[in-house]
């Protein structure tokens, strides 16, 4: 209640048609101070509320003051500016908290021992153990899934862009869309019935890879398709005009031109499937021991490890520590993939000639 009066005085001293540059900053500082005062005074224990009060105050004060001093159009502009800033801050808080919490709690047990040992013989409630088996399993499963999904995905995209016409192409386009909507657990169930129950293969890393590949394929097709479409037709025409066969044109001209974008798409899809828990739970099954062979017997997996440490641990601190450390490792892995993807994209960005 008291803020408008306070800032009014400040604003009152201005005689120009526009507010000074420090005005937004002053409003922010002022409303945060008032919000803290209200929060302390009213005994609100949630910092979230303090933040909300400050945000509402800042927007209101900005509007009131600006509309008086600068007129309605400028006031609307100011309110939009402050709303955009508020949006940004509102989003930053939880996202920063996520990264902060993971980093802070993750580093507790994350060390060389943790990365190079399995959970063999360590009860979930005890400290110790590591994620080596899970890390190895995830790398192998994701690698195999990539090996399956990328050739099929890229070839399908080539078909759609370079050859596709008529009913088949339309059907493929439509079903690729449908496929993106498959809930991951459903893909897991499908492979479970088909691979394990009908073909009688046991749980293995490879079974998980099959499900992950199903989830990965449509993403690869989509992103590759978009990238191939970006290749200027002049390049294709020039190559064909020189008498180069179409398949060589695709392999030597179209693909190299778009390889950066395709690689980025693939990397991002890898990042996406790396975090899948449900299909892995059903198919790879998890183990506490190191199993380097993805084709036989259960393996570990990082997302599964996080889930199990969270769910099976009777809430013991040691297990939570391990879960956070594994989460940090997983995020770091995804981040490295992301960086690599960006590097490739920048390095091989298609020269569009614009």
């Amino acid at each position, binding site marked *: 209640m008291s803020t408008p009066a306070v800032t009014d005085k400040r604003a009152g001293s201005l005689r120009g048609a526009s507010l000074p540059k420090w005005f937004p900053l002053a409003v922010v500082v002022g409303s945060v101070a008032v919000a803290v005062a209200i929060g302390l005074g009213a005994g609100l224990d*949630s910092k*979230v509320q303090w933040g909300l009060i400050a945000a509402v105050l800042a927007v209101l004060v900005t509007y009131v003051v600006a509309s008086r001093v600068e007129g309605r159009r400028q006031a*609307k*502009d100011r309110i*939009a*500016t402050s709303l*955009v*800033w*508020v949006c940004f801050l509102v*989003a930053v808080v939880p*996202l920063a908290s*996520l*990264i902060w919490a993971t980093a802070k709690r993750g580093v507790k047990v994350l060390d060389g021992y943790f990365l190079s040992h399995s959970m063999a013989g360590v009860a979930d409630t005890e400290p110790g153990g590591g994620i080596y088996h899970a890390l190895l399993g995830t790398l192998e499963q994701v690698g195999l899934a990539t090996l399956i999904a990328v050739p099929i*995905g890229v070839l*399908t995209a080539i*078909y*759609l*862009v370079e*050859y596709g*016409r008529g009913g088949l192409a339309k059907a*493929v386009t439509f*079903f690729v*869309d*449908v*496929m993106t*909507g*498959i*809930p*991951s*657990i*459903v*893909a897991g*169930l*499908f492979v479970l019935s088909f691979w394990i129950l009908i073909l009688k293969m046991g749980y293995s890393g490879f079974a998980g890879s099959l499900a992950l590949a*199903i989830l990965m394929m449509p993403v690869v*097709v989509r992103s590759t398709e978009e990238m191939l*479409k*970006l*290749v*200027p*037709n002049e390049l294709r025409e020039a190559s064909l005009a020189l008498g180069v*066969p*179409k*398949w060589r044109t*695709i392999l030597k001209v179209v693909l190299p031109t778009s390889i950066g974008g395709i690689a980025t798409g693939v990397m*991002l899809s890898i990042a996406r499937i790396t*975090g899948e*828990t*449900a299909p892995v739970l*059903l198919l790879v099954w998890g183990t506490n021991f190191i199993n380097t062979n993805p084709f036989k017997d259960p393996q570990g997996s990082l*997302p599964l490890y996080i*889930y199990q440490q*969270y769910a099976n641990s009777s809430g013991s601190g040691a297990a939570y520590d391990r879960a*956070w450390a594994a*989460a940090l490792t997983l*995020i770091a892995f*995804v981040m490295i*993939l*992301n960086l690599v993807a960006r590097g490739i994209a920048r390095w091989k960005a298609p020269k*569009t000639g614009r």
Partner: protein
Amino acid sequence: MDTTTQHNDAAPPLTPTGPGAHKRATRGATRPGDRIFLGLSRGSGILLLVIMAAIAVFLTYRAALAINKDDGNFLTTFEWNTGLLPPQFGIAVLAFGTVVSSIVAMALAVPVAVGIALFLTHYAPRKLSGPIAYVIDLLAAVPSIVYGLWGALVLVPHLNGLYGWLDDYFGWTGILSWQGGAPRSLLTVGILLAIMILPIITNVSREVFRQVPQMHEEAALALGATRWEVIRMSVLPFGRSGVISASMLGLGRALGETMAVATVLSPTFDIKASLLDPGGGTFAQNIASKFNEATEFGQDALIASGLVLFVITLLVNGAARMIINRRKEYSGANA
């Protein structure tokens, strides 16, 4: 995916039925190398179709097995007990919970995401927007299990105060009253989902806003428009359908989210009037929760609910695609 619009003027084979594509394909197919390559690429397309067909057949088959034996009504029963004789289960609660939590997530995430996208493209200092864009890209790829872990151990304890406050001031509305249980309700799920889909919507929206023709903005500025008026008159109309399709993508992810929901919700098989009271459930969460102890029949029933989720997601994605396609035409005309 939105970058395609840049090159519409170069007439890429967006419409593969065009005469150029036709001619090339027929002439190319005469060489052996071409035939092999065409065969390979068409083969992988067909393989994809076969996989899809197999999944569809499998889903419907097992779902039909379960629904036939359902003693309750599959659409309206407020119960999920496949162990009973005869079994009783229905998706009413799950459909309600899925829709409500997704609506909450969208209502929270879309405005904020658009705000951030505008911030990054039009407000933030250059030096700041690059790194922030990268961090948001990264967050889009953070595995959902990590969001779940964070949600259960960090977010939920922090919501107690907020819920009490909402109950104090808005409890009279009925939908925001709170009985004082643990804050593990559909609203919590909505908030967590909003945080999860925020990066996705922001990313796509940012790309769209970036493609607004410079000329439009400069023209508006030249007429003396304020920054907000520029955005309202040239940026938002251009980006509207892009933002809608981005939101649909986010919605698709929110609908199918499993682990994160399972960790922060207190699922019960009834529908509560208040968003703050624990209860409800979602399709994906229910599958994950019930699957472990399910008998083969129980699994069939869960697959039936998975099929419903699948159809819903399909509709949402289809809508998104339609809107994206329409936008292509729109922006093509303006480029």
